[in-house]
């Protein structure tokens, strides 16, 4: 025991060297306590995530699902991707949690407590699709910078909260309002307190939609910490970075919000198509708004082997940003023939829709089942990668699974 303690102390001292600061009061630390700076906890336990989730990054935390994990109609927390830009806030005090409304286009700044937001405004619940703008980035060639998401940075949970529109009406905004920008309690990775890890927003037309919420519940429970507890802005159908977590302020701007990750190349794509690998000037990059049409086969898991003569039942989800999905098809011959799937209407606007099909295979062999959704404007998912862009956003290429018939 004594040796252990000695090692523990020696370790703390060496940690002090590593983190570049003396650990003051190291001897006062509770037994068994590991300083936060060097904590390497089990993220699956810490965030209550399923073990099959894939960790892309641990500082900041970024974790995605695999297609077959997303089979539920309403995504539960254990399968919801995490995309963080900074450090998760600590010591959240919900009694004193305040949201400050300010900005050029506000009549007079106003502050609400969490309790006031909950009690003063009518509450609404919607199921809303949140997809990371960079979902599918890993497929771009030449590779795009950032977390290399495959297919699992999408979720569709139910969110309960108050309409941002109702709150803004109560605050009082000017006619010249153009955009809102959110501010949040997460902190910058560099530790610089003057920097916001992310401060994005949306134009007023999106802000004023029924489904744009300041939410305090996810799937009927308090929002998990990693997903924005105690308050999250929810803007379904848009890059999930618009749905800011740990909200402490909303600025109503008289211009396009210029917070962190609103400018430069962040969450922007070339205004005009470019050659793969081309350098694009910042001023030629346009902000991503509604996400493109996309679908995911969530059952069965890729790699299924079935006996000849048996039918394969597949199902999954399809979504199209602000639009509805009007047609769903599958192909087992690499797009030579497309067969229609059943597609259910959405439970509400901006929620994903469920599709299913029963597939017969003509003979033994290796197959790929490809799925293709078409939105209300007639746009379909491409089979190859869509237009290359420097940051690798908006990959809505068809999802496929491998199947063997023996």
């Amino acid at each position, binding site marked *: 025991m004594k040796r252990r303690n*000695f090692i523990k102390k020696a*370790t703390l001292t*060496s940690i002090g060297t590593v983190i570049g600061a003396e650990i003051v009061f190291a001897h006062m630390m509770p037994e068994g306590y590991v300083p936060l700076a060097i904590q390497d906890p089990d993220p699956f336990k810490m965030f209550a995530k399923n073990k099959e989730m894939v960790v892309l*990054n641990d500082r900041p935390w970024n974790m995605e699902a695999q297609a077959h994990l997303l089979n539920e109609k309403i995504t539960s927390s254990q399968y919801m991707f995490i995309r963080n830009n900074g450090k998760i806030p600590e010591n959240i005090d919900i009694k004193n949690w305040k949201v400050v409304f300010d900005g050029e286009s506000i009549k007079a700044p106003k502050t609400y407590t969490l309790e006031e937001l909950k009690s003063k405004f009518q509450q609404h619940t919607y199921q809303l699709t949140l997809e990371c703008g960079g979902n599918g980035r890993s497929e771009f060639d030449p*590779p795009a910078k950032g977390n290399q998401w495959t297919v699992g940075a999408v979720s569709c949970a139910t969110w309960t909260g108050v309409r941002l529109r109702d709150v803004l009406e109560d605050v009082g905004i000017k006619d010249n309002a153009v955009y809102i920008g959110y501010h949040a309690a997460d902190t910058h990775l560099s530790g610089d307190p003057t920097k916001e890890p992310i401060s994005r927003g949306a134009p007023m037309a999106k802000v004023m939609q029924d489904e744009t919420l300041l939410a305090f519940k996810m799937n009927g429970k308090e929002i998990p910490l990693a997903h924005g507890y105690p308050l999250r802005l929810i803007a379904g159908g848009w890059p999930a970075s618009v749905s800011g977590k740990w909200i402490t302020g909303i600025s109503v701007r008289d211009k396009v919000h210029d917070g962190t990750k609103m400018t430069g190349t962040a969450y922007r794509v070339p205004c005009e198509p470019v050659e793969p690998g081309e350098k694009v000037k910042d001023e030629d990059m346009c902000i991503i708004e509604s996400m493109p049409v996309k679908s995911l086969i969530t059952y069965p898991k*890729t790699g299924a082997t079935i006996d000849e003569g048996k039918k394969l039942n597949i199902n999954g989800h399809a979504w199209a940003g602000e639009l509805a999905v009007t047609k769903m098809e599958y192909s087992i011959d690499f797009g030579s023939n497309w067969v229609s799937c059943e597609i259910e209407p959405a439970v509400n606007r901006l929620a994903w829709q469920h599709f299913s099909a029963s597939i017969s295979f003509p003979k033994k062999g290796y197959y790929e089942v490809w799925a293709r959704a078409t939105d209300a404007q007639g746009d379909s998912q491409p089979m190859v990668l869509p237009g290359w862009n420097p940051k690798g956003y908006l990959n809505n290429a068809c999802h496929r699974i491998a199947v063997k018939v023996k």
Partner: protein
Amino acid sequence: MDDKHQEFRHSVKKIYHTIVAVFSLVGIVACFLIYMLTDPGFSAFRESDTSTSYTAIDKDENWDTIENGIHIRTGLKEGEGLMETVNNCTNCHSAKLVTQNRMDANRWATTIDWMQETQNLWDLGQNEEIIINYLVTNYPVLKKGRRAALENIEWYELED
């Protein structure tokens, strides 16, 4: 003269005693502090220590261990420029953010510029070239084409 001499001797003695006292005190405090360093919980004075989890220990004894060509703490590959990369590129973000990305030297340089302009990254000096060389050598760009084949499929029997 004698009186003065006596007085002087007296003062010297006084100062000597004070010094001894002060040094003894410092010595006692030092002993105490040294003990605190080795046993902050005073476990030697307790019957038993029931605490169990010191998760940090095993990792930190071997802070920069390399096993099978992998720097264990960061997951980075062993190679020329490894420690420069570890020491400059894993302070703010995880090494996972580095190894996920495949870029040529130009794009790494642009990325470093961006981190310096916006993310408080320091001037890397001569290490910049070493780090970029390390990255393009150990994490080269892979051609993926317009759509890659499905890979690493884990085949299984699908039950009804």
